[in-house]
């Protein structure tokens, strides 16, 4: 990395320093004990530690418990429509590449109604950081099965238990062309959650982080076997991947060295349902970003915009027929 020039140092010398409170907005209306709170705390901590300017940061969400996220961040936010968080975020990034764009989406929002957008967002690989808050249930609408609900889950829509195997968001993402960053975290390991969120933020391209999240209201016992047995959390570590803190290493002794450049091994690890792999499964910084591929250096002056609009409108203009002599 080349050192900063004196001018760059000068420009940063007067940068404002932010505290956690500068990113907090209102009291979250999530249930007490909800894993969304842990994600919120980790992301606010990331914003503070990275010095992200609130007016240059955007959180985009769809619909669901997780999608209330932008309301609790004192930054720009866009609480979008169901399943459409990703295309909105892509539009924001395309128009304003200078902004840092995060996406908060749930298992229903992303993996059901928004599944098509999810797959193509991965393929487009725009520079976004996507958090999939996966509590394996529709919580906001009071317990309906989501695509990631385990088979046999009794809900309002599946009173005899769900019939289908749960969709695995990690293996799906790892199967899409142009995937560039896939990680998994759990809300009950805050130190690891923060480390993974930070690594995702620093990746250039679409960083997809699935966060396995408790829903104490509708699925209170679902994750207990993993929560109470640290051995079922498989800590992925590697010199080129996650370097977990000593506290995490001490608690999570089921550890696996995994090189995040190995996509086939990543797919194998992601398919293991006996343990929850936590860490960076795959990272490839060489995948090009869509905005870089099609971005134009041409300045959008008022004249350029006007000419472009006129050209587009002229395509559909019905011109009066010239009178015949």
């Amino acid at each position, binding site marked *: 990395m080349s050192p900063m020039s004196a001018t760059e140092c000068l420009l940063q010398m007067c940068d404002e320093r932010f505290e956690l409170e500068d990113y907090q907005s209102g009291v979250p209306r999530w249930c007490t*004990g909800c894993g969304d709170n842990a994600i919120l*705390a980790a992301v*606010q*901590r990331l914003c503070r530690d990275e010095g992200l300017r609130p007016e240059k940061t955007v959180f985009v969400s769809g619909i669901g418990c997780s999608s209330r996220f932008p309301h609790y961040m004192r930054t720009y936010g866009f609480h979008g429509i169901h399943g459409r968080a990703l295309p909105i975020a892509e539009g924001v990034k395309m128009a304003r590449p200078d902004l840092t764009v995060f996406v908060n989406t749930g298992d229903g929002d992303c993996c059901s109604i928004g599944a098509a957008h999810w797959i193509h967002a991965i393929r487009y690989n725009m520079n976004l950081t996507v958090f999939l808050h996966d509590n394996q249930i529709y919580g906001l609408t009071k317990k309906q099965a989501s695509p990631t609900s385990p088979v046999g889950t009794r809900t309002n829509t599946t009173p005899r238990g769900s019939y289908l195997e749960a969709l695995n968001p990690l293996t799906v993402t790892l199967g899409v062309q142009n995937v560039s960053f896939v990680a998994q975290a759990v809300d009950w390991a*805050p130190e690891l959650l923060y480390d993974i969120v930070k690594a995702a933020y620093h990746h250039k391209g679409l960083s997809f982080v699935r966060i396995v999240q408790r829903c104490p209201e509708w699925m209170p016992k679902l994750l207990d076997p993993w929560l109470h047995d640290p051995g079922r959390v498989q800590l992925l570590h590697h010199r080129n991947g996650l*370097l977990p803190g000593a*506290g995490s290493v001490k608690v999570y002794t089921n550890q696996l060295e995994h090189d995040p450049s190995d996509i086939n091994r990543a797919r194998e690890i992601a398919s293991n349902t006996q343990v929850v792999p936590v860490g960076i499964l795959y990272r490839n910084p060489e995948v090009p970003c869509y905005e870089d591929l099609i971005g134009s250096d041409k300045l959008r*002056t008022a004249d350029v915009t006007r000419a472009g609009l006129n050209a587009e409108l002229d395509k559909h203009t019905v011109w009066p027929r010239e009178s015949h002599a």
Partner: protein
Amino acid sequence: MDAASQAHVAFFLTGSRPTDHLEAVEGLGLRPAVLSGYRELAGLRYDFPLVLVANRPDGPLVQSLSGLMDEALAATTGDVHGERVRQHGLRIEREIRARVSNGATGLLSALWDEAASRLESGAEPSFGDSLRRVRTAITVDGEVADCDAALPARLLRHAWSAVQAKKAAAFRRHLDRLVLKLSDILRADFERSKAGRDASHLKASVGTGFGDAFDFDAMSHVLATTARTDAFPEARRQRIRHLLAVLTAQRFFASPDAYTFIFNSCGDALEAFRGRLPALVDLARAIAVAELEIDGQYSELRHDALFEQFGANGLDPQDLAAFPGYLVCVNAGQLPAAEHARLMEILSSGLPIKILLQIDDILEESPDGQGALTAGMRNRQIASMTIGLSDVYVLQSSSSNLYRFREHLLGGLTYRGPALFSVFSGASGAASGLPPYLVAAAAMESRAFPAFAYDPAAGTNWAARFCLEANPQRDLDWPIQGFAYEDEQHQRVSEELAFTVVDFVASDRRYARHLARVPRAQWNGNLVPVDESLSRERKGLPDTVPSLLMVDDHNTLHKVIVDERLIREARRCREMWHSLQELGGIHNSHAEALLARERRAWEEHAQPEAEAHAPPAPTAAAAGAVVMGTPAPQEPDRSPGEAYIETVRCSTCNECTTINGKMFAYNNNKQAYIADVTAGTYAQLVEAAESCQVAVIHPGTPRNPQEPGLDELLKRAAPFL
């Protein structure tokens, strides 16, 4: 010792040729034997001539004619006509090369047309078809340059212009963006002003189509009474106007009256740089302030004082990197002392000035003919000396090697600080009837002018910065070439000959007096090759005499002996080559001494032990050791029975803070800790421990023995203690 051998030794020691045993070489037109196959360069396919590509801004800047033809032939010779097209393509390549070596210049397209029209007359009918096919496959065009005295400056100017064009385009884009954004700020300010909300201005902004559809007076009135009119301060407006003036008046890039950045004198370049420095600092400051203004971050309170002294110490290399570099082309043979001092001033000052130091002659003799053989040594050693400055990009190369060094050439031009390109053109060979390419290549081959590049930006040590790879057989003192000839019995004889600096000097007619031809009848075992002679240490009267194999214009083999003065020169040249080898990590004396010491130590101690004990199997812990990112937090000292939270494991679920917001609080990372254990009851501590999703609350023992229901609470608290 017989009379002939005595004469040989006498010549070796004194340089005097007894006529009855030795012959003069003047007039024989001798050249080193290994150069016998390079008489007609135009008939050979090699790197030259070059095409200085002008129509591919994102492609290679320079290509060899033979490389271009190879690509074109590969693309066109896939069918049944392939061999015919290949033959015809190579014929026109040879014709172009011959024309260029005879002095023809111009674009490749023009030279192609001239060569084609000459060859087509009288050629077979399919010739035109072949040429059309090959020509279609060649998509690049540009000036064709042969390896001559003009090549170094032409090539460097061409590469420099391409690098500057890219830099200028990026700078222009940046500048245009700043100007547009600053203008937008002023425009927005105007739109919110009284004049901007005036009815006539509103009407003009709607256009003519719907001019009658609105009541602009009413609209103006409404805007004047309801919309905010917080125009920004006049000082800011003035500042932005000043920034716009500086940005639009700059003369560094793509400006109608832009500065010149190519010079033929170090003094002129230095003077120009210093004269333009205030304008440069102003522009750099304007760009920095404009960025802050556009971002809405400029604060007079904080930034005025900072930028007032901006550039007082000049600009650092990173800041200067965005601006044009300077190119100076000078010839070492015409460098007055003052200019030499300016050259060293530039190189030691860290300024972004690139200098081409062209050396046409590295064998010019000192006027008095005494001392070291080559007065040109001073010029050819400037590059080696400049490496000592540490932060200068240094490239030394013969012009014959410039094409292969093109990436290093670009490296120097894009390097942020000063760069020195020391290039031997080979032009001095003309006096000896040798083409510049051959002289330049021989200089590099013979270690007289080794090629190297020193890039300070490539790393922090010599291994990363210094590159010696271009030199042939760089592990050896002298490169070894195969040589075959026909003897008196018409039998083929093959030998391996070292090409030394003596071979290089021997090809220059000015040094013929240091050579003497030995008649065939006197060839004997006392005449040893120069490299062998150099490897022997003479302690008394020499019993052997160094000799060379050379050929005359008819390719007849001759053996010539050389005097000691040339051998002394060769020794000096070899020592300098050894120094470069060490810098390049070849036969590094420190490394070899260290290796020898370690080997001795291993043989004395470690080897017996290693043989006595089988290697231990790696432990499981060592095999799977985790590389940790952060150390474990220090565990605070706690008294027995004290309530606490494992704060780093808290998942911020709000359970405990909801139970008692005074007893439980969040820290800076929004993770819970016990803020005041006296602010609540033991019952609340137990309840919080039970509610905690990740079981990180430990309630300890009760502080108040009178608290009701304590027995029950202690039972509930037991799992969390």
